[in-house]
């Protein structure tokens, strides 16, 4: 809202400099954007929040100033002279759409002379950014900027059938506005029509047919109320935003129609000549009187945390235009003024007294009761995961929650369901919500490749989205995605180290085939039948899709399951002071034998003193062992907490393992 300093002073004597006043406005609710000079006029730009439609005119701003400065408000009292002929003989108003236009009023002026506006009027309009058109149009704009009520002047000679009909537009009705563009309307929009056709789009813009021209002599002056939602829909849909629609969306004073109409007519008579016909022709309901609000003094301290004396509360509310009366000890009955449609509840009044009494009166050093807050298990889990990944040299990325169009076809490790998408792309060419994090990391890796940064190893903790049950919200999952150089053992080592850090998690590993992963390299890890995650080398086709020039390995873990497995507090185990004894074993087994089964067998049968089973390597020698055989090399470490072990007892444990391995896995021990 551009406010002309000189204009503002017409309604209230501003005893402060423009800069000081702008700060006062900012501290009481009208945020100061900037102050400029337009010619010799000082203009301050105030941001008006959407609840304060009353401040979208100079008078509203002056009213705020008058409360802040305790200066009287001086308002014009328009009483234009009327001729003997009744306006009702010239025009009939039929309001058929009160949902969109609760009240419509018209006045008739005959015999005006269209011409340029006087200099003072031109200057004021220009100062607030409005270009002059002609005296009548300028006056409607002047009244709009004065009191915030949009006005419209029709050329009465173009209103056919002496009739104004307020109605809903017909679907696909065509309408040519003053801007000479044709708009297609719908049935939720308000149309002002004459007996034959639409002459204005209610609250938004006038029609080209009935606009004021140089030859216009007779006028119909419209002052009406339109419902905010109807105007907003129309303005949005037609992309036709005007100072009028802006104000109707924010509710001008519902009881201010008559004042605005009289003010407009008076200025026209003064500046354009002509005669005002008697009376106003209207159809619709008068604005309802705002309801009384009970204001309890004890609520001031309860909500604001400070005491404000009753006298100050009363004064502020009265100065703001409320009718205030006592209603018992510490209780007021308050009737807000018609222009403050935002004041409907006690808490609204508390805000009024707070902002006018001054928020600086609220202290910033009161005692705050202490409370305790422990970190969530998820925070602890992710802190450990991030620390591990940092130590491994993997950097954290943050990527958008959507994937580029086309990428959604690559599928997801987690779901075979259809991807969700938003109706407007979140980013250009990206509207599908991701079902997996690591494709986004592939993109980030590619971006680094284009910057000549090779082998960007990245991770991200983020949400993935899958369709939910009918009527339910989508199913969201927090996952940890990782991409590293194309080294299967490295990515697996990274994942295993994270599991170790989070809580010595023991999981089941099995092969996993997916288009995103190179055949034979995919692995799924699970705990108690629940999938904890996946890893593998990224398939050549996926690698090509992301234009990556080197092989990539990827992993993705379920953060919530990881969190469930968190060992929040680590417990010490006794560390043995006795020496360890090691035994290297070299088994020849069938290719189908998995390391995990051999490892488990060792742990089961190696006796109490078997401390660890360390995998060394896999070796194949088809000449010596035959086809379909492999050698698994491992080291057993034995140690006791209580004593030094003897070679004999360790050898016996090893023999037990060898025996069981031979019988259950057909493993042959090489000497």
């Amino acid at each position: 809202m551009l406010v002309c300093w000189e204009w503002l002073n017409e309604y209230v004597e501003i005893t402060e400099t423009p800069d000081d006043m702008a700060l006062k406005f900012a501290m009481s609710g009208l945020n100061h954007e900037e102050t400029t000079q337009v010619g010799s006029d000082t203009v301050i730009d105030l941001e008006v929040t959407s609840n304060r439609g009353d401040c979208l005119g100079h008078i509203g701003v002056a009213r705020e100033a008058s409360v802040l400065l305790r200066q009287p408000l001086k308002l014009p009292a328009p009483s234009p002279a009327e001729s003997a002929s009744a306006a009702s003989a010239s025009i009939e108003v039929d309001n058929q759409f009160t949902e969109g236009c609760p009240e419509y009023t018209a006045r008739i002026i005959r015999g005006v002379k269209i011409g340029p506006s006087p200099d003072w009027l031109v200057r004021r309009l220009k100062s607030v950014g409005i270009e002059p058109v002609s005296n009548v149009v300028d006056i409607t704009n002047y009244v709009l900027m004065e009191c915030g009520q949009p006005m419209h002047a029709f050329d009465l000679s173009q209103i056919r059938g002496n009739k104004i009909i307020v109605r809903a537009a017909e679907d696909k009705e065509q309408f040519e506005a003053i801007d000479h563009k044709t708009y297609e309307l719908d049935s939720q929009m308000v149309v002002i029509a004459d007996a034959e056709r639409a002459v204005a789009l209610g609250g938004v813009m006038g029609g080209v047919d009935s606009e004021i021209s140089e030859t216009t002599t007779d006028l119909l002056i419209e002052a009406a109320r339109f419902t905010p939602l109807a105007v907003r829909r129309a303005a949005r849909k037609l992309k036709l935003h005007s100072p009028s629609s802006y104000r109707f969306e924010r509710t001008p004073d519902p009881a201010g129609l008559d004042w605005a109409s009289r003010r407009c007519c008076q200025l026209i008579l003064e500046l354009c000549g002509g005669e005002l016909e008697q009376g106003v022709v209207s159809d619709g309901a008068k604005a309802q009187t705002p309801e009384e609000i009970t204001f309890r003094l004890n609520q001031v301290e309860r909500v604001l945390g400070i005491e404000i004396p009753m006298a100050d509360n009363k004064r502020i509310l009265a100065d703001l235009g409320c009718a205030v009366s006592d209603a018992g000890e510490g209780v007021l009955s308050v009737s807000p003024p018609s222009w403050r449609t935002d004041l409907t509840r006690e808490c609204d009044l508390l805000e009024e007294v707070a902002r006018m009494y001054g928020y600086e009166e609220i202290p910033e050093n009161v005692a705050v009761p202490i409370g305790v807050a422990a970190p969530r298990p998820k925070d602890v889990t992710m802190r450990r995961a991030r620390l591990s990944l940092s130590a491994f040299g993997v950097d954290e990325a943050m990527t958008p929650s959507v994937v580029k169009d086309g990428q959604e076809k690559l599928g997801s490790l987690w779901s075979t369901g259809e991807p969700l998408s938003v109706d407007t792309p979140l980013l250009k060419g990206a509207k599908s919500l991701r079902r997996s994090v690591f494709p986004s990391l592939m993109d980030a890796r590619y971006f680094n490749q284009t910057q000549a940064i090779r082998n960007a190893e990245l991770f991200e903790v983020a949400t993935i989205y899958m369709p939910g049950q009918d009527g339910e919200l989508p199913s969201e999952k927090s996952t940890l995605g990782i991409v590293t150089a194309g080294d299967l053992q490295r990515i697996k080592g990274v994942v295993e180290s994270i599991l170790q850090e989070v809580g010595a998690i023991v999981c089941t590993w099995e092969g996993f085939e997916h288009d995103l992963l190179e055949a034979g390299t995919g692995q799924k890890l699970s705990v108690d039948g629940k999938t904890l995650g996946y890893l593998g080398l990224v398939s050549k086709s996926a690698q090509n899709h992301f234009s990556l020039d080197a092989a990539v390995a990827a992993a993705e873990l379920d953060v919530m399951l990881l969190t469930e497995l968190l060992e929040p507090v680590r417990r010490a185990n006794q560390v043995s002071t006795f020496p360890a004894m090691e035994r290297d074993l070299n088994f020849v087994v069938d290719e189908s034998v998995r390391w995990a089964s051999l490892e488990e067998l060792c742990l089961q049968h190696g006796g109490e003193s078997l401390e660890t089973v360390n995998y060394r390597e896999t070796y194949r020698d088809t000449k010596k062992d035959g086809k379909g055989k492999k050698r698994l090399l491992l080291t057993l470490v034995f140690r006791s907490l209580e004593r030094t072990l003897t070679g004999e007892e360790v050898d016996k444990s090893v023999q037990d393992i060898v025996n069981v391995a031979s019988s259950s896995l057909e493993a042959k021990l090489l000497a």
Partner: protein
Amino acid sequence: MDLQAFLTALDELTKQASGDFAAAGDSEALEAARVQYLGARSGRLKDVQKQMGALPKEAKREGGMSFNACKTKVQAALEEATERLGSGGATVSDSAIDPTLPGTKLHIGRTHPITQTIEHLKDIMGRLGFSVVEGPEVEDTWHNFIALNIPEDHPARDPLDNFYLTVAGKAVVDASASEARLLRSQTSTVQIRVMENTPPPVRIISLGRVYRPDPPDATHFPMFHQMEGLWIDTSVNMAQLKSVLRLFATSYLGSDVSIRFRPSFFPFTEPSVEADFYWNGSWVEFGGAGMVDPNVLKAVGYDPEEVTGFAFGLGVERLCMGRHNVTDIRDLYRNDLRFLHQF
């Protein structure tokens, strides 16, 4: 073997070993020499020791003493050589080590600056007694709008200002429908979810991604992070709000700061304010705040006559950018390692 021959052999051995050890130019050569003379299995000293058994009985004592003396000498020569090649090497050529040469660089990964900021915020708010909560990013209209006192005719609900989900591939026609789903436009949704399921008191912060259709530029991105705080109890007031914000800002900025309130408007708080903090000689925007609107309290089943509360929200990116001198928000989501490695 007689004693004299044995002693001669010992002398010979001592001389040769000392010469070879002294001549060794590097540690490999020295090790080879060590094995040759002092090797545990077949070193020459071992060989000589074996010959001791062939000495006449009366010569054994002197032979043994001489052998030990020889062994000591050989070991001393070895030690001297070892010292010469090891630490002593530096004295030979001080200039061979260039102290200005760089060490081996170790690559350490970095957490994202947004994560660092979020952890910082959680840390401070945790000390002020606020627990962290999370909620879904895809929301229904009840939690994103209605319960937050944003009525159907409010511009905030416009499809153009939100990311509504498509249903069966089609855009949502009626954004007010209860089954409409959208990417949350604020983290206040989580506060509603917590209040719906928890009796007062409630003292929480919700953190996470939010989405608004702003075309990306230096200061806007359609996805960003918010932190919202909420405190509901029987006697929470605006002075406490101001005090909590001051404690927060003081901790975040590391020195005493002042807070000011400017009136504002949000549907879910009344009174509503913009909070600024005074820092380095000017007022800096902190975020929106206010007392929870009674309609919000009613929507979650609380009695506004029984409890009051305050709420505040701030943009994580703005704090992060201000703190780390990031001038373009898009840099945060490009994931250029050169950028990420600065934090």
